[in-house]
């Protein structure tokens, strides 16, 4: 039976790369005692696929992996079993059964939600007009947003405006470093936009340089084409 697991990766675990995260969960499902199905051959691996890689340095509470199991306990018991074997920074929030004919998270993912905040280890203090301007002048009012996008085939200049579904700014006047930006961006194998690039272009629009380490980037959810969170495509057992 097909299962979708939603998990978080926070704190220092943002430095664990995508491949290492996969290896981590391959072991974790065994420690948790899940009745996982294995691939055939001399090096059997748990049948497992991840919806969307998370960049090094990015935290998340909305990561997804799809697994195949031969049998399963209830969702609540399975979440508890997985959380018992997690290291600090990893946590499992959901465990749902998918219809047998459902597509993998990797195929379905269409958009990703991010929260951007200011890294207190840095020295960046966001000015109000710029922070709010990223939502209004940079995103809403621009016809096109030209940016150099790094892809598999080198760098291409393209219009990223259609890949930004929304940007919402929340400025904290009492404590500007507590300000936040919320954004929903195209994600998945067809179109994928990294939040770093959006912030970089947004700051550049106002003549500011971008330093990645000035910001915390946190992914909150992955959604399908109908903008439904991937976990809601399965049922709790």
């Amino acid at each position: 039976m097909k299962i979708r697991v939603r998990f978080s990766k926070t704190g220092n675990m943002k430095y664990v790369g995508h491949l290492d995260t996969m290896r981590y969960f391959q072991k974790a499902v065994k420690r948790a005692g899940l009745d996982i199905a294995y691939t055939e051959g001399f090096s059997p691996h748990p049948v497992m696929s991840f919806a969307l890689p998370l960049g090094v340095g990015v935290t998340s509470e909305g990561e997804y992996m799809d697994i195949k199991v031969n049998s399963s306990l209830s969702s609540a018991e399975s979440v508890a079993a997985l959380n018992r074997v997690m290291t600090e920074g990893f946590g499992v929030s959901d465990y749902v059964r998918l219809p047998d004919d459902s597509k993998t998270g990797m195929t379905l993912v269409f958009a990703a939600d991010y929260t951007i905040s200011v890294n207190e280890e840095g020295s960046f203090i966001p000015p109000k007009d710029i922070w709010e301007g990223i939502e209004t002048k940079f995103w809403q009012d621009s016809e096109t947003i030209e940016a150099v996008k790094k892809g598999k085939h080198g760098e291409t200049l393209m219009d990223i405006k259609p890949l930004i579904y929304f940007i919402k700014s929340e400025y904290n006047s009492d404590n500007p470093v507590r300000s936040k930006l919320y954004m929903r961006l195209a994600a998945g194998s067809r179109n994928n936009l990294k939040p770093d690039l959006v912030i970089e272009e947004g700051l550049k629009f106002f003549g500011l340089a971008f330093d990645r380490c000035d910001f915390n980037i946190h992914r909150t959810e992955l959604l399908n084409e109908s903008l439904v969170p991937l976990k809601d495509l399965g049922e709790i057992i």
Partner: protein
Amino acid sequence: MSKRALPDKILMQVDKSARYIGNELNSVIKDPSEVDVRFAICFPDVYEIGMSHLGIQILYDMFNRRDDVYCERVYSPWTDLDALMREKDIPLFALESQDEVRKFDFLGITLQYEMSYTNCLQILDLSKIPLLANERDESFPLVIGGGPCAYNPEPLAMFFDMFYIGEGEVVYDRLFDLYKEHKHKGYHKKEFLLDAANIPGIYVPELYSVNYNNNGTVNSFFPKHDGIPFKIRKQVLTDMNSASYPVKPVIPYIQAIQDRMTLEILRGCIRGCRFCQAGMIYRPLRERNPEILKEYAKEMFRSTGHEEISLSSLSSSDYTCLKEVVYFLIDEFQGKGVNISLPSLRIDNFSLDVMSKIQDIKKGSITFAPEAGTQRLRNVINKGLTEDDIIGGATECFKGGWSKIKLYFMLGLPTETEDDMKGIPILANELAKAYYDTVPKEERTGKCQITISTSFFVPKPFTPFQWAVMYKPEEYLRRAGIVNDTMKEQLNRKSMKYNWHEAYTSVLEGVLARGDRKVGQAILNAYKSGCMFDSWTDSFDFSKWEKAFSDAGLDMDFYTTREREEGEVFPWDFIDIGVTREFLLKEWHKAMKEEVTPNCRQKCSGCGAAVYKGGVCLEDKG
């Protein structure tokens, strides 16, 4: 969120930052304020190499079983982070608490290979601990070395406060208890070291003097004070079943070089290959009870969920309960997504049966280590593997479906002639011929693949070859050239491939392996001129080492190409490994006469290891 020594700005810049954040599965978290002893255990190389080492896992687990000790891990920051830490003045930290190493009570460094010596200095330097032992007062950690290279600690004597000679399981408890006692009554480093020097296996270099002859060799070696032992006796775990075992090993996030669970089935070796240091210093051979091993395997799987398990030993085929344990692992783990890896097995019906069950024959290869190209030279080194064994074994593999063979040899062994060098590709050619004779054309999937690898022989202390000469780098390369040229003349040359090691690295390894105290200055010079990660081809710079030696007024040839007298006092002679110098010399003479010595199970040769009253020495030889 847990503590972190490095800010985002640095972690985002360096390669594989997960090396530096700790928090791995099964790593131990304690409150440092609630322990008496903080021990930083260090493997002086990059994280993914150090994390593959079983010895560190054993000690880490054992130390942390004590409530009053908190043991944390330290590895060499890779060159990118090393540069940033120096530039930004960030001190080296231990992974678990992310606290500065400098605050610890002990810094224990494992000495697994000579080419890591400059990295020991990197660790001290980045920790802001003075490099020289006599410049460190009570405010610094006590620096202790252990591991195989500690069997000749002299080149590192000026940097370490203590060395531990032997297997870590045995006397660390006594050392910790003594330290607590001293800490309780007011810790003075000198007083502590005087007491520590009386714990068996502990060597405090500062308490000993060396006198040299005019020709530079050691004249005498003696304690500076009364009541300090003349000889340091290797400490051995007599009963392998009584020790603790790391059944909850720390599992790294990034992939370690050896990414697997390890089951140590035995320690020591009965074979007595005359070049092999491990075969002598770990005598006598001692086995673990198979029932205990089965429990360990199950528990390790529960605690790690690992996808591979491997047996660890110097020669797995010499383990008397091998079949029982291997078939247990296959039964237990098949269907649980766990691969089984079996290194150092001799080829026989049993191993072929097992291999066919656990390995993809089409992809897998079989390894033989004849070590020398002719029977004559194999007799010299006492490698009891005959040409018939090799060709017969390989033929069985070919029948079983394998077509890839790896062969390991050494060049530069004592008495080696051109015939011995040429014998290497000639033997490989015979194996290829055996393949084409054995496997009918229609069953072949292309050519067979015979890969020859040669390393250059480096004489090590406490082996019968400790008297052997080494050669100049050019001479090693000439010998590799002969192997290469001869290979090209072989009929089956297209089925063969040849790799050889770096010659300059081997020469330096030889200098450090049989070095004396004077070599310490050269190591210091080399480090100060920028040498580090010498075991990595990209960072190894022989010319810096040459200068380091000449600046120290030393000649590398003294340690390598010089003929050693039979009666010469060696820098490591003050260590007693059980195996006697008389036995080693007898073996050296037998080597020159091309005579073989039977293994411990065939006949006891009276090597001296029986003083430990354990393992194979107590077995009934019928």
